């Protein structure tokens, strides 16, 4: 079966996000009252699978996220 998958990978609490800091500063310099800007990694793809949950879990643990520094979440929807 075909699925539409979205995976979001975020830095664990307490870890600094240099890219987020720099972009946050840039937006504030442009005059916007922005706070806490983060830049999570975001993946979108189609997956052909009979066990999508299991496979997406594995993909996150094995490749898409680094368990030392990342938390992850995902959503899986059937493709009509």
């Amino acid at each position, binding site marked *: 079966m075909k699925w539409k998958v979205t995976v979001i990978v975020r830095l664990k609490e307490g*870890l600094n996000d*240099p*890219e987020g800091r720099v972009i946050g500063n840039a937006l504030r310099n442009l005059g916007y009252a922005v706070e806490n800007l983060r830049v999570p*990694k975001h993946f979108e793809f189609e997956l052909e699978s009979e066990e999508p949950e299991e496979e997406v879990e594995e993909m996150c643990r094995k*490749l898409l996220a*680094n368990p030392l520094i990342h938390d992850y979440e995902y959503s899986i929807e059937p493709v009509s």
Partner: protein
Amino acid sequence: MVRFAVVVFPGTNCDFETERAIRKAGAEAERVWYKTSLKDYDGVVLPGGFSYADYLRAGAIAARQEIMDKVREFAREGRPVLGICNGFQILTETGLLPGALRPNRIPRFLCRWVHLRVNDVETPFTSLYEPGEVIRMPIAHAEGNYYVDDPSKVRTVFQYSDGKGNVSEEANPNGSVLNIAAIVNERGNVLGTMPHPERASDRFLGSEDGLRLFRSMVEWARR
């Protein structure tokens, strides 16, 4: 003569000069394409560059290639395994070294020479240095910010320092915890370094401080 494999992934780009430096240090060295087998080598070197263009995370995709199973075997057998820059990133992604190399505190690529204080001369790679010696090598990376949960558990080999050996915040180019620039595993046979020793192996290029790392590694492999 001892033989080292210099593994080349798609996007690796420091392999030629790394091979040259190992040869200068007195061993045979061969560039090995990541799809070929690692047969009879005495040690493995993962050179610097941009394997897979640093997509996803630096070193992440290279770390999941089949050849890394063989590199793990080398490490288990106690042979020397050296990861330089992207190679260090690959070793942490593989779990052969603790921690992770994150984006620099100032998120930009930075190429410059740094001073390093040598902390641990009991490793196969650093026996030709003096404890506390200050050496010079260039760094060139955007993701060299070393992070680990518990730095006290890490065997630190080089720390970024000033010219006098002071491990200060000013001397830290990328935000690495404790100014860590290079580490070894507990056993001491796997070393990861963000600074490039192969770029400091020729007096015309600025220093031969890096050559001693290769010489040390070659000498140890001979025994």
